[in-house]
């Protein structure tokens, strides 16, 4: 795969003394590569096109990753502003390489058992609790942004491109009908751009959706025959989890999942310890 960003990544690697091993992922204005450092360490090298990305968001992402030193959050090893030979500015992030793939890859192979879902949720709740401590909201938790180290089953949150720092002013205009996030995994407050209600409970909702997908391959708000856009619409209009979902979760001993995806933040768990206890019960 070659692209404009690929040549910039190669150029950045030459400067850093790294060697590109392979392509990993691409976003709207960034690409990630596997690279090897002079010491032989495998890392993820992310190149962001500053002319297309919102630099303030990139700055916040970097600041957030620097603040969070948790084993459940991808480690930022280095960051550099990089001027390429084409005269343009890029941001280059060196992050730890997570060799265990994404949750999305794993779910493509098989669904999780209730036991596995419980373990997954417990780990993810610990991760968002760390973010909460730092007054951060990820806002884009989905299977593609949950990865694993090659030697561990602990899920790791990656891609903080949409992170909201509650101690800073919001970057989203209040007149926008919808706030940032992947709609299918977004909470009603994100879908309705209710900025005043965005907090750790927003991530709790997305983690709940991930749990539901991992267990049943269905969104909690999905009724029989609904298309994904209809599910998003049902979420935005706060229809609430389907009756079938509630029943199923109760039967599986995962009633806490129902509370995690309630339409209003105030209806979800207010304290992460409470949520952990409910999941462990």
């Amino acid at each position: 795969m070659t692209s404009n960003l690929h040549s910039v990544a190669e150029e950045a690697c030459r400067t850093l003394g790294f060697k590109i091993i392979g392509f990993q992922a691409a976003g709207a204005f960034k690409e990630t590569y596997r690279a090897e450092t002079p010491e032989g360490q495998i890392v993820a090298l992310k190149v962001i096109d500053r002319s297309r990305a919102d630099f303030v968001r990139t700055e916040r992402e970097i600041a957030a990753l620097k603040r969070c030193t948790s084993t459940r959050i991808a480690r930022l090893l280095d960051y550099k502003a990089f001027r390429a030979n084409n005269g343009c500015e890029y941001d280059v992030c060196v992050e730890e390489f997570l060799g265990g793939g994404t949750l999305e890859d794993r779910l493509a192979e098989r669904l999780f058992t209730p036991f596995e879902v419980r373990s997954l949720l417990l780990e993810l709740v610990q991760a968002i609790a760390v973010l909460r401590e730092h007054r951060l909201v990820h806002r884009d938790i989905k299977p593609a942004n949950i990865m694993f180290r090659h030697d561990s089953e602990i899920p790791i949150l990656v891609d903080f491109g949409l992170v909201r720092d509650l101690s800073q002013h919001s970057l989203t205009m209040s007149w926008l009908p919808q706030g940032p996030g992947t709609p299918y995994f977004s909470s009603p407050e994100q879908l309705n751009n209710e900025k005043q209600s965005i907090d750790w409970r927003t991530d709790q909702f997305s983690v709940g959706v991930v749990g539901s997908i991992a267990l049943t391959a269905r969104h909690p708000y999905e009724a029989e025959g609904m298309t994904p856009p209809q599910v998003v619409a049902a979420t935005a209009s706060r229809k609430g989890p389907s009756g079938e979902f509630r029943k199923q979760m109760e039967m599986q001993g995962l009633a806490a999942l129902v509370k995690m995806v309630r339409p209003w933040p105030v209806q979800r768990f207010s304290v992460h310890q409470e949520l952990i206890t409910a999941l462990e019960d």
Partner: protein
Amino acid sequence: MGAYFQMGHGSENLVGERGLQTFEGIILSPVNRTELELQNDIVNFRRKAEYDIVLDPQLYYPRSEAGRLPDQAYFPQDLDTADLTSSRWWSDIVGKIADYGKRIAVDAICSPAVIPKKWNSDYLCHCVANYEELAENLQSSSIRPILTLGVHLDELGDRNDAFRIASAITSGSQKACYLVVESNVEPRRELTDSSSVLNLMVLIGALERAGCPVILSHCSSELVLMKAAGATHCATGKFFNLRRFTKSRFDEEKEGGGGALPYWFEQSLMAFLRPADIARLQRDFPQFLAMGDSNNLWGQAILTQFSSEPKIPWLGLSWRQYLAWFGLTEKKLQGKEAGTLVRKWLREAGERWEQLDDKDIFLDESRNDGRWIRPWQQALSDFGKVDF
């Protein structure tokens, strides 16, 4: 868990009186007292009992210059030119309020909040921001910060509004909420709009279920509904005609309190009665008088005085009878049984009003006819069906 006594004109002498010992906390009013007076009040209150003493800075209408408010050290001097939306401006005031509370040695301080013309997301952010600022200012002290939220009853027409407000208010680090409900309901009149009453109950229920205990300010006989909704504490003042939180209450207080008319609160009808009404009930339905906690120490004193010296004024006794009912009932309505008990009281009150109606017995005041009972029953019934 227990009632709070909202201080008003000359209320200080009622604190800790016989029959009023059920009150657990006191909400100070800087509108009526100087800083030094409040400091002395607190010393006196603490001698009487272990009250939870809360400072409400009362900056609801910052441009109103009620009572002694402008003399308080935290009262802003630049009101006319200030930008009330500026967080820096509020930050300065919050700091002064925290210092004020520390000087007079209160147990808790309510964050300052304006009562908005119309609430929106910016207003909710203002409430949360002022609270967080206060919490930061009180970090090194043992004084508890409480988040103040002002809502207008008319703005609670939609169930979703209650959840929306509760969601935004619980987005911070708040541990408790002081809820001030403004309404246009006239003094001495009950709330009759079942939909807004229900949504107020939902707001309280949602906050409480999210682990945010509510102190409901300026409460009247609707206390029974708010307790059924799960409010941890309800607060009341002594004046029946000032019990509503209306914008004009600040002006009314200027004139000296205005609690000139005595009332008897009768639980059997959930109504305030005038002296002639008491006489009517004594004559035609004596079994409807002095029921439940209306039959308290001060209620008995009133009835004794009526029979022995009917011409003697009983205004002071009437305040005490009402406050005693409020304190006792607030205490009784703790826990999960509150809803069942209130449902029963309202059903019985409705039946009694029908009996009065059947016998052509009309109470003195034109709208004192029990018209609020059915909306209250509806609100309570609908509250039981809300999916929290």
